[in-house]
């Protein structure tokens, strides 16, 4: 029982990452009609925003310590981050410690900008092109983006820890009156909360602002909205920026969960497409629902009891679920007719 609860909790957490990535992808994929293979790369760029902020905050002055030697027998270089010399060691190290949450402030404008530029500079010209061309150009872009990151940051994962206040785990067992342990890491709980917040914010934005309403109308019927004299293109560019920012924020907060590396976007690419399609093309709630559902099912499939009966099921569960759902519900969970079916 506790094992199942724990996996459901874990599934919600994993699912929140899937949902967040899928949400951004659906904004682009299901609404602008662009197959964006570079979406995973945007997620990766977000994570590297966190890395960058951490590195910037850790920029250091170097002093030589003659009493200690480095591996070549030279005096050891002692690095003192600027922030520590400016704000004092305690405040300074606290700032560095909180680099990941601080990176959110950095990532939002950066990712909005990247998304906007990407749309204006490249994607815009591909709305009318076949999906095949969109795949080729965005896949090319994804490779270029990740190679650029590799060039500057190397191929090795870069540890990007969460603030030390969030180290460790919270035990739900006493709360639920269970006598075993039901411990779950604080940062993952934060991630879950953060994701739901962002998902809520995106929905609220689309639901309650005039801008959002126009965009939703444009999603449903682009031509008509265009005829009303509304500059829907510009709004779509901004939506692209927002989608990029959502992916980026998902990446920033993900950095402490797994050390970012340059190909993490590709690792999520296939999965995020599966999530979006299982959710149904063009449906934002569908993407979120599918994200959580696949997260939970994936977690449950890795239960030892399940694996004992069906060895290896955890490796293929996502695909089995995708096949079953697409065969029983032709347009995924909540898909709209006619989106990407041609």
């Amino acid at each position, binding site marked *: 029982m506790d094992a199942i609860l724990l996996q459901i909790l874990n599934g919600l957490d994993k699912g929140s990452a899937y949902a967040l990535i899928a949400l951004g992808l659906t904004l682009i994929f299901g609404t602008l*009609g662009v*197959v964006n293979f570079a979406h995973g790369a945007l997620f990766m760029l977000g994570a590297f925003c966190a890395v960058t902020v951490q590195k910037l905050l850790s920029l250091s002055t170097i002093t030589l310590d003659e009493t200690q030697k480095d591996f070549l027998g030279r005096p050891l270089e002692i690095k003192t981050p600027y922030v520590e010399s400016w704000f004092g060691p305690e405040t300074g190290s606290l700032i560095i410690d909180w680099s990941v949450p601080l990176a959110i402030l950095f990532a939002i404008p950066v990712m909005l900008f990247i998304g906007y530029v990407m749309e204006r500079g*490249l994607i815009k*010209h591909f*709305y*009318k*092109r*076949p*999906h*095949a*061309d969109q*795949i*080729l*150009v965005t*896949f*090319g*872009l*994804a*490779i*270029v983006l990740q*190679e*650029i990151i590799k*060039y500057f940051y190397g191929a090795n994962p870069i540890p990007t820890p969460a603030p030390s206040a969030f180290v460790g785990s919270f035990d739900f067992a006493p709360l639920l009156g269970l006598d075993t342990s039901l411990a779950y890491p604080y940062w993952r709980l934060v991630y879950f909360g953060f994701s739901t917040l962002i998902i809520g914010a995106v929905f609220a934005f689309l639901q309650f602002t005039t801008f959002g309403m126009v965009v939703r109308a444009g999603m449903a019927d682009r031509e008509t909205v265009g005829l009303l004299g509304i500059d829907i293109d510009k709004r779509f560019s901004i939506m692209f920026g927002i989608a990029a920012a959502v992916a980026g924020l998902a990446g920033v907060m993900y950095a402490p969960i797994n050390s970012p590396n340059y190909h993490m976007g590709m690792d999520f690419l*296939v999965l995020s*497409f*599966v999530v979006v*399609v*299982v959710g149904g*093309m063009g449906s934002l709630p569908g993407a979120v629902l599918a994200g959580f559902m696949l997260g939970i099912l994936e977690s449950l499939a890795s239960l030892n009891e399940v694996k004992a009966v069906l*060895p*290896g099921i955890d*490796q*293929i569960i*996502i*695909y*089995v679920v*995708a*096949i079953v759902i*697409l*065969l029983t519900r*032709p*347009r*995924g969970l909540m898909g709209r007719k006619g989106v*990407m*079916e*041609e």
Partner: protein
Amino acid sequence: MFGIGKRDSTLLIIVAIMALFAPFILNPFPTGSAMAQFNAGYPDLMQRFVIFGIFAIGFNLLFGLTGYLSFGHAAFLGIGSYAVVWMYKLLDYNVIPGLFLAVIVSAIFALAIGFISLRRSGIYFSILTLAFAQMMFAISYSDLIGRFLGTTITNGETGLQVYTSDPQILIDDWESVPHLLGIVEMRSTYTLDAGAWSFDFNAGYYFCAVILLIMFYLAIRIFRSPFGMMLRAVKSNQQRMNYTGLNTRPYTLAAFVISGMYAGLAGGLLASMDPLAGAERMQWTASGEVVLMTILGGAGTLIGPVLGAGFIKYFENIFAKINDNVLHSWFAILPDGMEDFMVTIVHPFVGKGWNLTLGLLFMLVVIFLPGGLVEGGQRIGRVFRRRDRNAGSVEADAAKQRNPAAE
């Protein structure tokens, strides 16, 4: 000729000549020269060019004609390889039984996967095929079925290979590597030294090249057949097809199976050249690669996929090998400062940066040549042939059939 039109015959003959003289064409630079780095005329790469050419031609029969974008075609490639290696393990190193088995087994799998996946269209179809292929990849990579049965089916991540303890019931003493009916070993290579140049004539390459020509010829026949026309009709307007009394499902399924058989054959040939079958051949990246090859070359054209396959394999195998030493040797004639500067400039794009170059080229091609490399060829062709514009290129028809606006 051969029951195909004049233009198609011309194209086929050009391809045949190119294939025959590939060892010369691909090795234009003297062996010892700095430019020899760009030579691609060694057996392994030449084999890959034609094998992936076959794979892409087959994929194009599905995607280029019907518009159904399969994202799981690598599954059939892997199956083909496993089939051939299993024949090595059970019978002997003769490649022919394995190739037959590869085509048959991949056809069976394609029939099953296609039957289910073709119930959906568009992106839903793509994800279904992707899901099947990824499942098969996971199963092969960890040999889940083999483990379940307590035996070895795919030998997991190490890849399926021949061990001396295998049954090999038809084996003869002299057999140690794949061969064709005992006539010639696939790795036999004759090297012709001509002055500073050197050219490799490899038996395996020519075997693959002959099969490529046959498969290319068959693809032409299919393109020009009523069946091929029906497939293009599927892509154009399924509604009209239905109301014209045509059942689209068997057409798409037949295309899927044929294209799966091409993939299985290509996979089988990979294992015929090199007796190993690895699971990563089935991974989504491999499926994605053939999609890229086809689009890059020009989807829906006859020769495009072959060009795309050659393009990608060339970069993977040639650019990845250019290291800083090679760069320094190229720019050695420049003054020292300039040499280092040039090496620094070029460095990110070659060697370990070959992916970057490939990514950039994908973008450039798709931005400037919407019809893929074939369109590039046409544009060049047009420059040279302004005078008889009406003659048009052999590929013009096919290129025009690209959907001008899929939206």
